[in-house]
């Protein structure tokens, strides 16, 4: 009885994997393709014939896969960015960036939206973790001397990415529109107001007025959900591309 079930299952798998639709989706060498075997040739195809080829070469230096060298910090920063994008899109469905609605939308999200509180928590903690992992990634790269030629420019891109990460976190900080958000941002933007020569102009543009209000909220919302993510994705693309063009990750020491 059990064997006949198994036979039927494997027959079904064969049929699905043999279908035109299936083999049109999974390119030769894919681990999901019919008759996949673990061979050096197929290991190469897994990368070469998939979208992952944009991110990884077919082969990497043996020392580059040592977790003790990278601590996965760069990759985890990227993963957190993806997680924040996914949870952030979910939050956007329930949020209106207006002073009159923002806080009550947040409150309703937590109390009457399924998984609303959980997703908001993940977004918040993920954001703090991303700031930390990007910062630690920078420290790791410095201590390995990985910014030395030919990787100087990628380090510069990395510092820009760190700054953008801080700005993304800071612009998101205002959006709940509670006392914590309002006054943390007040402190932060007051500091920017002391920029020499055009300080008050910088502050005025950022706040959309001389004081934080509804205009600030819509500005920071657009910065947070659209403009800064757009910019950071471009810089991330250059960053990852340069890692490969500069001969993979640095080291060994």
């Amino acid at each position, binding site marked *: 009885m059990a064997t006949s079930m198994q036979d039927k299952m494997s027959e079904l798998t064969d049929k699905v994997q043999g279908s035109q639709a299936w083999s049109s989706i999974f390119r030769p060498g894919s681990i999901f393709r019919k008759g996949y075997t673990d061979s050096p040739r197929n290991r190469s195809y897994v990368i070469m014939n998939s979208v992952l080829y944009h991110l990884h070469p077919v082969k990497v230096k043996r020392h580059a896969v040592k977790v003790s060298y990278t601590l996965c910090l760069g990759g985890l920063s990227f993963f957190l960015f993806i997680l924040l994008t996914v949870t952030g899109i979910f939050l956007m469905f329930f949020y209106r960036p207006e002073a009159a609605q923002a806080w009550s939308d947040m409150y309703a999200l937590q109390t009457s939206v399924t998984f609303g509180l959980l997703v908001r928590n993940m977004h918040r903690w993920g954001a703090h973790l991303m700031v930390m992992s990007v910062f630690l990634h920078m420290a790791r790269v410095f201590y390995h001397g990985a910014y030395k030629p030919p990787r100087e420019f990628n380090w510069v891109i990395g510092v820009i990415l760190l700054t953008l990460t801080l700005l993304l976190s800071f612009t998101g900080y205002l959006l709940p529109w509670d*006392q914590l958000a309002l006054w943390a941002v007040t402190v932060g933007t007051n500091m920017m107001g002391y920029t020499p020569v055009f300080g008050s102009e910088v502050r005025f543009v950022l706040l959309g007025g001389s004081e934080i209000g509804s205009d600030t909220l819509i500005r920071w919302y657009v910065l947070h959900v659209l403009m800064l993510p757009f910019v950071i994705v471009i810089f991330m693309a250059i960053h990852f591309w340069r890692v490969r063009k500069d001969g993979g990750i640095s080291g060994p020491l």
Partner: protein
Amino acid sequence: MTEIPEHLRKRAEEARAKAEAKKAGGGDAAPAAEAPAAAAAPAGDSRIPAHLLERSRAAKDRQSGGGVATAPAPVAAAAGAAVPAAPAGPVGTGPGGHTQRLLTVVKSGSIQDVKAKPTDKVHTWPHLLAIEFVAALAMLTFIFIFSIFVNAPLLELANLNQTPNPSKAPWYFLGLQELLTMFHPMVAGVTIPGMGIFLLILAPYIDKNPSNKPEDRKFAISLMTVHLMFWAVLTIIGSFFRGPGFNFVFPWNDGLFFEL
């Protein structure tokens, strides 16, 4: 059986037919000295100049002519290269009686390194991708479980007329806010962080030391560590040791004035 593409099969057949024809023709052409020169040219070796063919045939004849003659022939060829006037017959002279000399030999690799140095590499799949997948999964699990048990703060509705005491920036700016207690706001809020980012960007252009070994980089590592520690201490003081009025407090006496 493997399928051979049509054009390749045709080409192979033609080549085979040609070889057969040559073998058949070569049997009676060998004794005659003049015939093969005419026969060989249209047979497919037309790219080799006739005088070179002639020269090689002459050399072959001399070699097969007798064992004694084998030795002088190369010597004559070598001498012909050094002394243009040497009467070495057709050997070593070009069509106009010129001698050709080898000027130099460029060894491969002396100008351009064409061969990649072998490096110890592993396949990205599964070695790297498996690690990345596990790391991402571990991170996701951690955030998920942490988010189940710890809620993000949502204080009461923003009120511009009610300033909380203390008012703190997000944690990553608390080092800067701590600097505000020591310096003019322009120095603490703009000059110092601006210089910090500027110096970070310039780091690879300032640090000319080519080594990446920690024992060769004691100065750079100490400098970075001092600054990171300085920054961490400021952030920790700003986060946990500042209470109402941003005055210094001990968290174990006066409680925590910190929200994430």
